[in-house]
């Protein structure tokens, strides 16, 4: 399985396989060194060394050019000549974070290092989750790898249902939504306010379908080998607050930041009271934004979410008092709409190629409104996508899991799965180039 995973990764570019293997070996030995160190300062020293190396590699590949640009801009110089012309290794942010959690957990004595180097390499490099998550924890995966058994019939059933839903989300929703998003974001000056808003709404559909689709495919593929990966999404667009949104969106990343950054920060700032928590939130979301990409726009994206969480934290009681008179359902609908609106707005910073595009969107959306005759067509298209997304989310919500397809009568299951697969396969044969997963770039 390790060989298959490495083949899968190296298929894209074999040179980055060296990095993956090197990083895995390094952290395996750091884990042992931390565990075996007799004194706390020595454990800490090994941990710091491990963090410095892991983050150093990540900084080098992902953030070097960004820091050079930022440094140059602050002195009014263009330092483009210092740029590194290298490709970003696929999934580097994901597997680096997994490795970090392993060494930190050993340092915190929450985990004992594995004795099997192969199991560790498989934990980091197992193909379903390696390139775009979910960011799994060693404590969840290593025991499963150590006792791998022949998958049960039901594992295939669950795996198939997850992959079916994931493929539909990724190929027929995410990739096809991108046809609109990419064009409008590439040339926004030629589109009216209503068309720009459409592109933003479609991006929300695209990124959700793309990433949730990937996560379902990853979980389904792992299930074929009898391995359980954690849920990464939990109907995020039903969230009634931004705080709740981050409990439902990219759950593995949110919990990683919660465990390894937010909680230590809260402890450090404990003397500052509520302000300390607010600071911890802002810092956490600053880094969460930066994790997504090396650019100011990702930092703004993170900070906007940090700001929203801080706002919700400070005004929780006040809001309850202010809107308490509303019936619960009405309150929930309004809260959900407000949350979705804010989330969609923040996606603008995430998706826009540069600050000029952001400014143009903001201007057309909030200042100079224009409309066009084809807007009705476009919103009809958006609505169709929206219904498709909501139908899947509704069934997931009702059954409280993503494997709802596995639980129904086989005749009905195949009655649903076959038309979906036919659509997916036919579409894949019509396209010139397959669309990569959005989160591959991270």
């Amino acid at each position: 399985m390790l060989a298959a995973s490495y083949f899968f990764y190296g298929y894209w570019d074999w040179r980055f396989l060296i990095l993956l293997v090197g990083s895995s070996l390094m952290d395996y030995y750091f884990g042992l060194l931390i565990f075996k160190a007799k004194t706390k300062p020595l454990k800490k020293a090994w941990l710091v060394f491990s963090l410095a190396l892991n983050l150093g590699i990540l900084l080098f590949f992902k953030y070097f050019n960004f820091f050079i640009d930022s440094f140059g801009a602050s002195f009014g110089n263009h330092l483009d000549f210092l740029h590194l012309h290298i490709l970003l290794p696929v999934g580097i942010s994901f597997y680096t974070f997994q490795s970090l959690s392993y060494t930190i957990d050993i340092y915190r004595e929450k985990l004992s290092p594995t004795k099997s180097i192969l199991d560790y390499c498989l934990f980091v490099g197992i193909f379903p989750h390696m390139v775009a998550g979910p960011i799994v924890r060693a404590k969840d995966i290593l025991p499963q790898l150590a006792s791998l058994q022949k998958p049960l019939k039901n594992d295939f059933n669950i795996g198939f249902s997850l992959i079916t839903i994931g493929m539909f989300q990724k190929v027929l929703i995410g990739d096809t939504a991108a046809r609109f998003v990419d064009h409008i974001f590439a040339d926004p000056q030629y589109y009216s306010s209503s068309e720009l808003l459409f592109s933003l709404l479609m991006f929300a559909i695209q990124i959700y379908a793309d990433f949730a689709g990937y996560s379902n495919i990853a979980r389904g593929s792992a299930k074929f080998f009898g391995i359980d990966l954690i849920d990464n999404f939990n109907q995020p667009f039903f969230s009634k607050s931004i705080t709740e949104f981050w409990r439902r969106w990219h759950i593995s990343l949110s919990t990683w930041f919660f465990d390894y950054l937010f909680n230590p920060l809260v402890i450090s700032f404990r003397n500052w009271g509520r302000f300390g928590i607010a600071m911890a939130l802002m810092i956490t979301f600053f880094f969460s934004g930066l994790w997504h990409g090396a650019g100011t726009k990702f930092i703004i994206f993170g900070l906007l979410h940090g700001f929203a969480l801080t706002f919700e934290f400070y005004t929780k009681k006040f809001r309850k008092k202010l809107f308490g008179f509303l019936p619960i359902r009405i309150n929930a609908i309004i809260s959900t709409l407000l949350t979705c609106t804010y989330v969609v707005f923040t996606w603008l910073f995430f998706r826009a190629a540069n600050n000029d595009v952001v400014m143009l969107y903001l201007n057309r959306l909030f200042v100079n409104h224009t409309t066009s005759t084809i807007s009705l067509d476009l919103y009809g298209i958006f609505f169709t996508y929206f219904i498709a997304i909501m139908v899947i989310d509704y069934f997931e919500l009702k059954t409280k899991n993503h494997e709802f397809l596995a639980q129904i009568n086989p005749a009905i299951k195949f009655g649903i799965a076959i038309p979906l697969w036919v659509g997916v396969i036919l579409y894949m044969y019509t396209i010139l180039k397959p669309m990569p997963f959005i989160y591959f770039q991270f």
Partner: protein
Amino acid sequence: MSFCVDYFLKFTRISAATLKYYDDEYGSLNRANISYFKSVEGLFVGNTNYDGRFRENYSPKKEDKKTLRILLMGDSFVEGIDVFSVNHFAQYIETILSKKLNRKVEVLNCGRGNATIHTMSYYFYNYLSKKYDIDLVLLFTEGRDIYDSGDGNSYPSTFYKLDSFNNLVKGENWKNTPEYNLHKKLLSMPILKYYENSGYFRLLYRAIARTRIQGFKQITFGKFFDAPKELNYHNSTSHDELSRITKKLYDTLSTFNKGQVVFVLRNKPTYTPAIEEYISAKNYKYFNLADTFDDFNIKNTKIDAYYFKATNTYGGHWNNDGHKTVGTFLANKIYTHFNEFVMPGYEK
């Protein structure tokens, strides 16, 4: 469930409606009143009108005699379904010219993908010129026009050819093509009439077409098999001479409506000096788009008029910037030369 997915495929334009149909008289034409979508190079979302044209819905006869009616003839460049209709160059001509002339300007976009002068002119003389009020024709020429289409035609439409007395006669060879006969046979089978209304069938049709171009192995197994060379845009110059039929068609078209025809010369995809030489020697009116482009770029800028950022392609057509440039250029040219046209009732 199949019906749900089928509707999803249609409503989201994943399987767009088929644009073409076969007319008994003219061959391949655009279908009327359909929702159409294209995103291979740029993005187009819109509908055809009652006559299969894009962008406008003007009635055949002018509602106000003072309205200036311009008809565009050409191939896919003119049809322009790589940009939204509001960004098509026809829209710029209407907006700029109506402002300058202080009267309503209506531009009919009669461009059709893959059409050449041989097919265009047949459709124009036998259909468009009879049905529509036209004041001015902008006839877009291009490299493929200069050849003698002979007895056949790459585009399945009725075309003009020359008989032994140098007269224009109708050529209908497209009716003998296996493709047309298959199409007729399929449509005669009742079950396949569902084809036009089925998202699955349309998708299947496109999948087969793509597989034929790219190869089953390459699409299925990707990297293990060589991909066919990407269709990309290449500069080329043709030094071929104009064929007899082309000269005859240019001469005939130039006299339409007392000479209210302007040739528009394109520098791409194939720069063909013979067209300009012939037209200028004959003193026909023409605008040369090479005056507003520097190779791929808009003149005196670094803005590429042919590159589609979202798809990272040079498919061969104008992008939004290109349409804006062409529209502005043509509107200004028409305005500058307005007095040279014989159009009673139109004074600046």
